[in-house]
């Protein structure tokens, strides 16, 4: 294990890339569009540029933005048992915990399902739109992108969508349960979130934030 690069090694820092998972150091060679650079030691994907990825991510982000807003307010499940009807939206579900100390849980739930995904979408647009339009990066774009990456594990909209399915199975024999429009929106959201992750090459974003003129 060497913490400091060998001073005799005549390589400038910009020609090196370090695997963030296992710390193996490689000489940088940017792969072609559609190819991947993979760490030989731990198989982590280092660079994976895609054609027009920026534009695709912006399109997906916009779609996600409106789906989240829509999914928040339209009812997503309705229940009918012996004439008693009830339909709930995501906001209702989040604030199911709104009594006493469980209010904290309500805020956390609303945050994880709605606000964190929304914040991530807004940050992504803020960072990527200037890059795609070949403008200089927005102010604090690097902080914004770092924050958005830090939020990634806490964005749980797709987990909530699967939670709907589990809840349905649990009460299917108790009452008639139907899907509202927001349920399908959440279904679409899951696909979009997965798609966005597969197009997003972090190395390319950082690189174009640092060198706005190249590519």
């Amino acid at each position, binding site marked *: 294990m060497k913490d400091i690069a060998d001073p005799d090694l005549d390589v400038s820092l910009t020609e090196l890339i370090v695997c963030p998972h*296992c710390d193996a150091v490689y000489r940088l060679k940017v792969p072609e569009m559609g190819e991947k650079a993979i760490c030989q030691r731990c198989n982590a994907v280092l660079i994976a540029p895609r054609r027009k990825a920026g534009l695709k991510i912006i399109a997906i982000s916009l779609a996600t933005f409106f789906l989240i807003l829509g999914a928040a307010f339209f009812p997503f499940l309705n229940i009918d*048992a012996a004439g008693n009807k009830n339909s709930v939206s995501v906001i209702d579900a989040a604030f199911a*915990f709104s009594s006493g100390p*469980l209010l*904290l*849980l309500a805020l956390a739930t609303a945050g994880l*399902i709605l606000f964190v995904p929304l914040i991530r979408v807004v940050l992504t647009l803020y960072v990527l739109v200037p890059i795609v339009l070949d403008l200089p990066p927005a102010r604090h774009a690097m902080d914004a992108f770092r924050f958005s990456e830090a939020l990634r594990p806490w964005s749980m909209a797709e987990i909530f969508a699967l*939670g709907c399915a589990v809840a349905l*199975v649990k*009460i299917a024999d108790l009452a008639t349960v139907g899907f509202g429009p927001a349920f399908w929106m959440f279904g679409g959201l899951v696909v979009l979130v997965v798609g966005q992750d597969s197009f997003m090459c972090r190395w390319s974003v950082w690189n174009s934030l640092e060198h706005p003129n190249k590519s």
Partner: protein
Amino acid sequence: MGTQTCARCGHKMVSRDFGSLQRVWAFWIMGLMCYVPANTYPMLQTRTLFQSDESTIVGGAVELAQHGAFGIAFIILLASVAIPLAKFWAIAFLAVSVKSRRATANHSRQIMYEVVEYIGRWSMIDIFVVAILSSLVQLNTLASINPGPASMFFALSVIFTMLSAQAFDSRMIWDEQAKDEDPS
């Protein structure tokens, strides 16, 4: 070199974060502490026309099995009991194994770490199911479901295990191998 912050994103840089193990264990213990009341307190309070009962996670699964819904009972036990316990075990194993020289294949440990990081978030599904059920099943006198105190502890437990997994510095898995290759 000798820079302390990343020139690109401004994040603090550390070559090897040996303090990270302490944070891993701190969050791990917090997670385990929250996991105990999450299982002893009731998760759901169900009130139907004639009766009201409170069920814990395991109790609810046993009840479902008695009604013959073995599949769902199995899924609940797997998602709410087996996977969280496996997560605690896996994080502890990783944190212990980077300290000892006994070489489990690095690759399988890396995969284990990635699986723990990936699965961690999905445990929140229990909390979301409770939220959905208790907002949906509010049918006046006929039936109603309310969240029990265990839901908060379960959420905290999930959050603390996620933080614990994030605090782990996966590069430490590979350091022993690097030492072997490099005799200096």
